[in-house]
């Protein structure tokens, strides 16, 4: 059966309180963060460490707070980040119970102590860094590039404005995996189910008027596990920090398959 509880060595233990504010310090000035910590070298269970971020010295976003902690309190805190403006998708993590980007999540949008965990249901490499190997392999498997058989034109593959518009809502995906790791179907069957992010990418190439391998692409998705584990739970759409709708992309794939075969 599906494993509904954490294995023994993954149970999160109580961690360390790093820098509790001094007695009498203005409470409003410090924001409490509870951060998942896992050190693969220590052999210990993961733990939840508590940090207090001085908001007078720190930017407004959750990523600002994590960087502040790393610079001022605990240099061993490990997380991915790069662009700090919601374009690269590196700092995706589970913040206050929701998968989102630390860089575009305003700390004021969460109430109380802010819990920060890695993306759910992926193996954890260290602290907030999950292993995305399987996710990237799934992206590779749907062959996310233009495939054509007609002779390559002298200048470019032309596309009408209307056809280009069909890619809106698809091309903006930054592959942060917030949607896939919010999806229960992906939690239970992430080895065979492609998940919302990858299916949205698949639809992006199937929708592309310049791509000539639409049928082959649909063939590769027509599978009880790869596509049809989607039960329209819609966690994906709720989670997407870019406001995209992977569930609609998946529905569009199913519609095309029905249109083709039934």
């Amino acid at each position: 059966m599906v494993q509904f509880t954490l294995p023994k060595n993954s149970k999160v233990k109580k961690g360390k309180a790093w820098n509790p504010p001094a007695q009498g310090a203005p409470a409003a000035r410090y924001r409490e963060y509870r951060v998942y910590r896992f050190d693969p070298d220590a052999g210990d269970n993961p733990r939840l460490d508590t940090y207090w971020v001085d908001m007078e010295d720190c930017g407004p976003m959750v990523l600002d707070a994590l960087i502040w902690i790393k610079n001022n309190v605990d240099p061993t805190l490990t997380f991915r980040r790069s662009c700090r403006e919601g374009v690269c998708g590196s700092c995706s993590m589970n913040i206050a119970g929701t998968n989102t980007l630390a860089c575009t999540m305003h700390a004021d949008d969460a109430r109380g102590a802010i819990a920060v965990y890695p993306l759910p249901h992926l193996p954890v490499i260290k602290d907030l860094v999950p292993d995305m190997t399987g996710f990237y392999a799934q992206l590779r498997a749907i062959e996310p590039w233009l495939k054509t058989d007609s002779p390559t034109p002298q200048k470019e593959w032309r596309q009408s404005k209307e056809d280009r518009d069909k890619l809106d809502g698809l091309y903006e995906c930054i592959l942060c995996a917030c949607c896939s790791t919010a999806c229960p179907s992906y939690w239970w069957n992430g080895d065979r189910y492609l998940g919302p992010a990858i299916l949205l990418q698949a639809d992006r190439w199937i929708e592309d008027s310049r791509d000539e391998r639409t049928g082959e692409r649909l063939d590769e998705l027509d599978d009880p596990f790869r596509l049809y584990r989607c039960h329209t739970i819609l966690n994906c759409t709720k989670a997407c920090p870019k406001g995209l709708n992977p569930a609609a992309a998946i529905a569009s794939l199913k519609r095309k398959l029905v249109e083709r075969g039934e």
Partner: protein
Amino acid sequence: MATPLKRVRGLGAAHRGTETFWRQRMTAIANIPLVIFLILSIVSHIGAPYDEVRAYFAQPVVAVLMLALMISAAIHMRIGLKEIIDDYVQGEGARVIAILLVTFFAAGVGLASVVAILKIGLGS
């Protein structure tokens, strides 16, 4: 030691699944009016004597609708139960056993219902 891509590609796409998906939608749509009809049939016969209820279900139109409901519901149930197994049961052995059980169950319920309706409808 297999590469991640090898693991993801696995045994390849089954090239099926759409038919099942579509069949589940079709039986779902069919079940809506059929179940409403069943509920109305039962409600309108509350307290009625056995012979009257039996005569009602023996009418050809009623019998056909009931047969349609039982066949549609059994197919729908088989697909739905298999979906649950595919979602939650892992390990090939357990999966195969679970699929066999739900298939026999759905077929058994469907066939027993069909025989019952035919017996009433044909008056034997």
